[in-house]
């Protein structure tokens, strides 16, 4: 982990970039405060992993709240979860999984220096992310119509409920409080992800990345995988209990 080791391993990357105005020796994309490209890449990667750990703990608060209320009101959770649309949720799971795959492919092609391909894969990822939000929008709309809202605003309309469902127990509003928080916070992450991916896409089209320098693509994809991962837990917990 010492910088000596990395310095040795990547001495070959030095060479060009003399007199680029920043007064350091290395390619343009090497920030002034790093000695070697490897150091820059390692730092970015580590920083992102630490940030992702933080993200997991952020969501963990929601998971703990979920666990607590589920153990207190198992019947209520069962009945309430029955009201969620498994088809839409399932479709969204597939959409996100696929987008995670295309994000990984974008990294792969960026590593190989195939700029066009990278752009295409990024576009598909972004489209999938929008698709996810559209499906989510219809789901939310149905919940609003059915009055399946957080506790204070919870007022179910029987005619909008899933056919053949048992009467909803007391405190069902708490389930929807948790549902909207979990999916809402996840949704915000999707929106942020779209912003990040578009930015990466534009930089890729501008030709910022190359075989030697694909760190931002890699980092953005890592983030996107996390968004996907969280959903993979949310889906069974909320929809399939």
């Amino acid at each position, binding site marked *: 982990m010492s910088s000596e080791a990395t310095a040795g391993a990547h001495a070959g990357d030095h060479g060009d970039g003399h007199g680029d105005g920043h007064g350091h020796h290395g390619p343009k994309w090497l920030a002034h405060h790093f000695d070697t490209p490897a150091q820059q890449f390692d730092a970015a990667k580590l920083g992102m992993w630490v940030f992702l750990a933080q993200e997991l703990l952020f969501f963990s608060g929601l998971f703990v709240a979920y666990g607590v209320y589920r153990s207190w009101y198992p019947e209520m959770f069962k009945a309430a979860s029955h009201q969620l649309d498994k088809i839409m949720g399932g479709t969204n799971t597939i959409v996100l999984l696929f987008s995670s795959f295309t994000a990984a492919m974008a990294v792969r092609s960026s590593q190989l220096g195939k700029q066009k391909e990278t752009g295409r894969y990024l576009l598909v990822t972004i489209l999938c992310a929008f698709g996810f939000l559209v499906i989510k929008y219809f789901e939310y709309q149905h919940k609003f119509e059915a009055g399946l809202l957080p506790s204070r605003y919870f007022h179910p309309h029987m005619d909008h409920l899933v056919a053949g469902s048992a009467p909803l127990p007391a*405190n069902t509003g*708490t389930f929807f409080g948790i549902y909207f928080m979990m999916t809402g916070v996840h949704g915000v992450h999707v929106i942020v992800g779209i912003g990040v991916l578009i930015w990466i896409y534009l930089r890729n089209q501008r030709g910022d990345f190359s075989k030697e320098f694909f760190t931002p693509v890699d980092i953005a994809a890592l983030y996107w995988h996390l968004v996907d991962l969280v959903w993979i837990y949310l889906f069974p917990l909320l929809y399939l209990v």
Partner: protein
Amino acid sequence: MAAITTTPGAHHDAEDPNASFLEKKGLMSWLVTLDHKRIGIMYLISVMIAFALGGIFALLVRAELLTQGKTLMDADTYNKMFSLHGVVMVFLFIIPSIPAAMGNIILPIQLGAKDVAFPRLNLLSLYIYWFGACFGLYSMINGGVDTGWTFYTPYSSSDPALGGVGSSTSVIPMTLAAFIMGFSSILTGVNFIATVHKMRAPGLTWRRLTLFTWALYSTSIIQVLATPVLAITLLLLTMERFLGLGIFDPRLGGDPVLFQHFFWFYSHPAVYIMIVPGMGVVSDIIATFSRREPVGYMAIAASSLGLALLGFLVWGHHLFVAGMSEYATMVFSALTFLVAIPSGVKVFNWVATLYKGSISLQSPMLWALSFIFLFTIGGLTGLFLGMLAVDVHLHDTYFVVAHFHYVMVGGTVMGFVGGLHYWWPKFTGKMYDEAPAKAGWFFVFVGFNITFIAQFIMGSRGMPRRYYDYLPEYEIFHQISTVGSWVLGFGFVIILYVLVKSLMSGKPAPRNPWGSAALEFQTPTPPPTFNFVKDPVLTRGQYDYQLATEDELYEGFDDPLFPGIRGGKPAAKPAAAAEGEKE
């Protein structure tokens, strides 16, 4: 210089490598800077303003309690005063104080790096801090909060405008302020972790890090792991108030104690976000002013990590009387005692370092010694509170108030002000006057003890905290405490005077005013933009007073109390002579 050799032809031919980082003028050059030192200075100014604001609130709270009944303000205003005092001190001052302000300036230099790993993120974290502070100010102008800094539900979450019976104050902007500032804290933590792992100069192994670096590294781990839990908790609280989620509000089927679990899962570790950096500062000061490698270096470093990890296991001691199961309370009580081990390890090692060290009692050292003294009292009284049976009596009394002030003020603020004096010459290039600086320390130390010892006594006799009024038998203690707060406040005014005077008319500081062997004192004062004139390569540790050369240690070293204390070595070299010719 023997220890710090250089790589030839390293970097930056464009700018004058010797130009100090303070050189560029103009507000914009500060606001868009990516230089960790400038960002640190802006943080430093911000947290000191926050400290002054929180201090004024504190003095008002104490003034109100000078006499029974109404002295100065009505009960509602009083509730807001102590809440704002707590919020400002915790979220705006103490959490960012040492890591984001001093750490930002010193950490990369101690690593021999040109900057932190992510300079842009660093600036972003400062902006986020300011953005959060704006929310806090907005809330204050809009009536403030009266929930206490803990925002306990259901009081905070149940809005009277919607038929609740809770607080009608502007809770939402204030919790959002804390939520936003949490992100600033997280980003700083991420940045520091990556910086410590990836930016160390060649030869700077983990065992050669300074203890300040170790402390910041441990703190960063807590920041990254605990803060997000607070963030989601505060978000849930905001939404509870806004949408009525039903998670924390019992009227809607929620559980307010769950909030307390979430809150303290952050806020107990947060105590270590506050105190561990102070411990790091103190370790460095003690080594420098004892002219000695810290005894048990690895033990001190490891105990920082130990505190960071144990800090996550003891949150339940805040809920002993909140209705946990008996078994849970017993387990949390037992775990709480474990925290004494790493804390004790540190205290014993500091004392052992002092033993047979060549101690010079200059002002940073005075702050460091009072840190040890006060933190020990704070820590030991913490054991009282961790003891299940005793806590049932002491819970939510002034004993608790005194305990946490001994830890937070006696610990962190001592570390902060000590560090401020220690690195002041490095930050500003100016020396301050030693005699009035010592006087400031004296008033703070004495005033602090008067204020809070009185609170220990009245707390143990049952005076509850957060009360607007009290029984006659407590009046004398409240009066002692209030007078103490004036002495304390006067001390800080002196310190402010000393620092401002130093800025206006201080003598230029030498490169190494204290004769320290650490890396930040080997670079010019104030440091150039890239920290070092040539990239450093380390061949010795940063506490190695044996291997450090005389030039490294004695350039500008001038100890008025104990000239030439290091056996056989020459006495002080004149400050000006050596300036500039090295490096």
